[in-house]
């Protein structure tokens, strides 16, 4: 199949970028979207042009590194799928495909389609952990956790921090990301001890990074490759409000 690509090219964070058009022919429908980009990059390199920089690593949908905004949607048209797992058979011969980087104040463009997502790490550093030193843990079965609680925690914990929620949100809000971590630890007994502090600190960091507020449009949950639910955002709201009203931090 033949496709026309319109790709955002930007040399570095200081230089303004623009959309550049490329034509690709003889693309196999079995290729993944990133393999199609590999083909483009090989062609560019042979012409002496600079290949398009994009983030990718595991190419099996779990590392969260790939991050393209494809035809108006993060990770492209197929829901529950990362860009690396998106295949060309989801497009038609002759299609024009627009590819842009994630757009958010908190995700500055580094080059072409590569953005800086350190803000998400900093939100976790603000409190997305259980403070337990190695070696101080009791026997694993001393704390019984009902299956449904473990499953609920797992639903939230499977976030891959790709940032699609931010990219999809009209407010570039990181609520689903932050909520997934707060929720994962809030439902488990291990996370209870510091749940108030965690919610307060992580939300403060999220705001400080320049993400927007939640408008409950639900776009994040639709575009999340791991289908993380809005239930977790409600839990974050509850956790935060509860913490603000009852914690000892004046």
């Amino acid at each position, binding site marked *: 199949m033949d496709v026309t690509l319109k790709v955002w090219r930007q040399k570095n964070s200081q230089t303004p970028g623009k959309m550049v058009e490329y034509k690709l022919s003889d693309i196999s429908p079995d290729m993944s979207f990133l393999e199609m980009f590999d083909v483009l990059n090989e062609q560019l390199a042979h012409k002496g042009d600079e290949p398009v920089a994009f983030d990718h690593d595991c190419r099996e949908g779990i590392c969260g590194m790939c991050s393209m905004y494809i035809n108006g949607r993060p990770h492209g048209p197929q829901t529950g799928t990362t860009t690396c797992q998106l295949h060309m058979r989801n497009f038609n011969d002759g299609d024009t495909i*627009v590819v*842009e980087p994630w757009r958010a104040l908190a995700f500055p463009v580094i080059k072409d389609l590569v953005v800086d997502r350190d803000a998400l790490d900093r939100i976790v550093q603000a409190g997305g952990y259980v403070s337990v030193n190695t070696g101080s843990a009791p026997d694993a079965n001393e704390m019984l956790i009902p299956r449904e609680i473990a499953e609920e925690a797992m639903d939230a914990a499977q976030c891959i921090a790709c940032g699609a929620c931010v990219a999809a949100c009209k407010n570039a809000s990181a609520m689903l990301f932050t909520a997934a971590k707060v929720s994962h630890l809030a439902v488990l007994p291990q996370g209870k001890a510091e749940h108030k502090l965690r919610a307060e600190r992580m*939300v403060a960091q999220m705001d400080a990074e320049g993400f927007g507020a939640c408008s409950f*449009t639900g776009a994040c949950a639709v575009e999340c490759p791991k289908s993380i639910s809005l239930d977790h955002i409600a839990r974050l*709201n509850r956790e935060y*409000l509860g913490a603000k009203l009852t914690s000892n*931090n004046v």
Partner: protein
Amino acid sequence: MSWVTTTLSSSLGRKVVMSLTGLFLCTFLVVHLVGNLQLFKGDEGRAFNEYSYFMTHNPLIKTISYLLYASIIIHAVMALVLTRQNQASRPIKYAYARPEDNSHWTSRNMGILGTILLIFIVIHMRTFWYTMHFGPITLAGEEIQAGSIPQVTYDGEPIKDLYAVTTFAFSYLWYVILYVLSMAALAFHLVHGFQSGFQSLGLRHKKYSPLIEGIGTYVFGILIPALFAAMPVYIYLKVNHILF
């Protein structure tokens, strides 16, 4: 900053303020609707006028009404603050976006809908609230004019005839259309807003959320705006002797 200001200046705290004021306005709508339904009573407006008198003279209602005005203002100002923050969080827009694939139009345009409603509220309050409170009294035998209010005497007590103001206003087609369109905006605003208010407070549960969604959609999204919209239409048709 104290914990109160920290909370109120956080994005989540601001959403809580939006939620509390919004939900309060929702309860007001119910009361307002119940009262206004007196318009449909075929008693030449007596029940409606007595209800209006009660609402403007009961001290408790008066107190609540100040809370109401404050809610409208806080809701609007906070919305403005949040909108600015939200817009700043994406300084460079996408060249090509398809938000319709992942979210409803209403949820993404609460600001526009809210602005329409705010303009409506100003017009609405000028027409009725201001006239009721400060409008000149139309003298007996004089024709009613925009901005003035006649009096009516029930059981020997003269009270302001808001019913006359209402029928006068809704005798104009353009005014009726304005109201119907505004109620459409209200419908869209509430379809999203009611549910969203509960979400912001963290009130979401497998068992109860379907009920909240149902009330948000069918009661606040359809029934209430439709009944409100029916009033000007009914009066227009009645005054102009078209149907009734």
